[in-house]
């Protein structure tokens, strides 16, 4: 019953999307916001209903539904039943259209700044996006398909999937990817109605900010999850699936900065439109790459080339149409106000240039193996050595730009900025000298990363100097916090890369190992058991100077399905993390892996600061809009 209800809701939503598109095209009535709005709202309500239906089916473990039977189990904790709804291809696609429809509804409800024609065109574009994905769901990935006869138990009790990080990582990323669809639709609507101007940018900005915040959080959370789950202390591997999430983020970061220029000064119109199209395109490219099986990855979805082909067709249609529209309209997009090279606009042009080049490098590097194989017949691999060597210096350039960029005035800045820039430059120079003296063997990228990261701390705060802090707009505070986050993350990355100490050994109870400043004693090994697993647990006592910490890493064996996992034990101190993993037993003892990673938590703390900065800026902008709206009414 509920499954059929969900399916019916989905069909209805698809039909409404079709109507919304037809209305925007002027078929069946005059295009009007008053007409489009209810369509968008009801469509969103229907998809939400369908998604709720799926959740209920999972929570009840209704095994007569194929998806539930394949991916769930009656003995799963309710949290993972809930998260299991989107932990599979069909469910995640349903989540995708739900967010798509909800975004469209929010756009329809709250957007009052842009011209009505443009809003209707954008809602039409959003409906067109929805239609493709509804078709995909209803024709090729039905989440509500029935299984007859229903099995006695579900297949999905994989313990590796029962992890809070894993449960909430996809929705965060999806909110990011699909949120960018609104920026895409607004750009398409603006290009269609030739309204590429500041009001458009002000309408687009909250959507870009919101999506970007979620993407930042999603990537940060994913990195931390991989770090503690995979058991080797790595936090980024330039893996194709990771790159698939990084590319939309890079485009969204460039778009974020570009849309600010358009909103404030009316400049960078073409670039903003192009970036808005590229950002959502990267979301689609990413979705395609991870589901089609065309790239090998440790994170790859269960692969289905047929589904991959469907997404490719959607990608070709949507992005092709948008890029064709861009090419057609590019000549008629009016130029904004002129600006000097040395100005905030100029700095943002360079910023976007660098971000786009990094995006291009990640794209090329990710796809090169399959291109090279097609052309030469030989397999090759492109991994961290390439990406770090090529993207690293560019990222450092960006960090250096951050020292002076935010200080520049709009349009033209001929002031001497030396005194504002000097503290940061001196900080960087000092760090460089100190590291040369005390850590001569440090890699050049880590050294510069550490120097620039630390220099970014004063550099982020400088824009606040000389201002009344209470009257500084929240958006400026947001910028300060986000840029500070960049510096903090850089410090973490450089520190982890240069100062990590590793100890691999085969140890017996009673053995003591030293790693970094820590002395770690293997006090004992004991078997332990949990609800559906048994494990060998090591009792480690770690101390440096005074006090002792206890770490209990485990090597677990789950009974059904039969799986071995390794649960790392992590002790977080103020200046780093001690990371311990217990491995297999050998004739002469137990395999032990220990890492001391100074300041590694700054990586994810920095990521969260960046997201927080975005949130502060978003709140500031929305608040200001509401105040302006109220003042206009008075």
């Amino acid at each position, binding site marked *: 019953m509920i499954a059929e209800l969900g399916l019916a809701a989905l069909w209805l939503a698809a039909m409404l999307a079709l109507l919304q598109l037809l209305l925007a095209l002027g078929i069946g009535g005059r295009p009007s916001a008053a007409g489009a709005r209810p369509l968008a709202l009801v469509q969103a309500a229907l998809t939400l209903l369908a998604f709720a239906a799926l959740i209920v089916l999972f929570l009840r473990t209704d095994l007569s539904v194929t998806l539930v039977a394949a991916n769930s189990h009656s003995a799963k904790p309710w949290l993972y039943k809930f998260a299991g709804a989107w932990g599979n291809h069909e469910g995640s696609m349903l989540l995708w259209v739900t967010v798509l429809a909800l975004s469209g509804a929010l756009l329809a409800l709250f957007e009052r700044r842009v011209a009505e024609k443009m809003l209707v065109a954008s809602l039409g574009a959003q409906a067109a996006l929805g239609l493709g994905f509804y078709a995909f769901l209803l024709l090729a990935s039905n989440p509500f398909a029935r299984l007859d006869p229903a099995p006695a138990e579900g297949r999905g009790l994989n313990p590796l999937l029962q992890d809070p990080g894993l449960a909430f990582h996809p929705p965060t990323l999806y909110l990011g990817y699909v949120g960018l669809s609104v920026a895409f639709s607004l750009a398409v609507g603006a290009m269609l109605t030739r309204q590429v101007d500041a009001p458009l940018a002000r309408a687009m900005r909250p959507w870009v900010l919101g999506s970007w915040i979620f993407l930042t959080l999603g990537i940060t959370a994913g990195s931390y999850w991989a770090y503690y789950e995979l058991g080797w202390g790595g936090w980024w591997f330039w893996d194709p699936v990771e790159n698939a999430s990084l590319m939309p983020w890079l485009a969204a970061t460039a778009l974020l900065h570009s849309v600010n220029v358009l909103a404030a000064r009316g400049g960078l119109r073409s670039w903003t439109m*192009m970036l808005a*199209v*590229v950002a959502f*395109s990267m979301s689609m*490219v990413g979705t*395609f790459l991870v589901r*089609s099986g*065309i790239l*090998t990855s440790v994170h790859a979805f269960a692969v289905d*080339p047929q589904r*991959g*082909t469907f997404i*490719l067709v959607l*990608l*070709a249609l949507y*992005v*092709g149409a948008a*890029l*064709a529209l*861009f*090419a057609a309209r*590019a*000549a008629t997009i009016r130029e904004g106000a002129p600006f000097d090279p040395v100005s905030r606009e100029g700095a943002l042009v360079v910023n976007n240039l660098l971000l786009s080049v990094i995006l291009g490098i990640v794209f090329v590097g990710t*796809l090169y193996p*399959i*291109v090279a*194989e*097609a052309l030469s017949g030989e*397999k090759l691999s492109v991994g961290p050595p390439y990406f770090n060597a090529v993207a690293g210096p560019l990222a450092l350039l960006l960090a250096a730009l951050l020292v002076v960029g935010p200080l520049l005035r709009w349009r033209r800045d001929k002031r001497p900025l030396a005194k504002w820039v000097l503290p940061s430059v001196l900080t960087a120079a000092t760090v460089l000298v100190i590291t040369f003296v005390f850590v001569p063997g440090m890699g050049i990228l880590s050294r510069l990363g550490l120097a620039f990261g630390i220099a970014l701390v004063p550099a982020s705060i400088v824009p606040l100097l000389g201002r009344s802090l209470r009257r500084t707009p929240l958006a400026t505070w947001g910028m300060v916090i986000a840029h500070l986050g960049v510096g903090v993350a850089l410090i973490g990355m450089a520190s982890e890369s240069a100062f990590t100490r590793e100890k691999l050994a085969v140890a017996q109870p009673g053995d003591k190992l030293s790693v970094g400043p820590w002395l770690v004693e293997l006090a004992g090994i004991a078997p332990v058991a949990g609800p559906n697993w048994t494990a060998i647990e090591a009792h480690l006592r770690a101390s440096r100077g005074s006090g002792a910490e206890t770490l209990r890493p485990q090597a677990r064996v789950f009974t059904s399905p039969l799986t071995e996992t390794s649960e790392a034990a992590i002790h977080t101190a103020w200046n780093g993390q001690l990371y311990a993993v217990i491995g297999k037993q050998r004739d002469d003892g137990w395999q032990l892996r220990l890492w001391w990673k100074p300041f590694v938590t700054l990586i994810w703390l920095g990521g969260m600061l960046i997201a927080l900065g975005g949130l502060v800026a978003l709140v500031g902008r929305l608040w200001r809009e509401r105040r302006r709206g109220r003042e206009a009414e008075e």
Partner: protein
Amino acid sequence: MRRALRFVPLALLLAFVGFVAWRLANPADTAIRSRLEGKPVPAFTLPPAVPGRAALSSADLATGQPRLLNIFASWCVPCIAEAPVLGDLKRRGVAIDGIAIRDKPEDVAAFLARNGDPYQRIGADMQSSVQMALGSAGVPESFVIDGRGIIRYQHVGPIMPQDVSTVLAELEKAK
């Protein structure tokens, strides 16, 4: 020139879509093949995998007649499926040698007793070192080696009945 530039993104998209569509329709072979085809077998000497059976060294592979070198293990599930096919090849007169990867003698003996023994010699490769020297990336794999000890053909995965004719043809070519 500037005007033409605005079509570049669209052109890039079409190139990407075209290439990817082609690749989806013509998937690449995912096996990691050895690059030593056409090169001599690297020199090695391995102890016997089962006590009492003849050991294997690279010199034993250059006998003047083509031979089949089979990389296997008792813990390798597809090797069980391959065993009868190897038996069939042996009956057709193919000389087969084996290298057992990371195996205890008693496990190899048990495997041979259960699944048949087509091997003339079996070497024990406890740390996959000869496997790596040959450029083999997993078990089971088989190499056709000609009379002068040159590797002529690599078969990745178990030899299934439908592969027998290919293997025999390669052995014929290696004469």
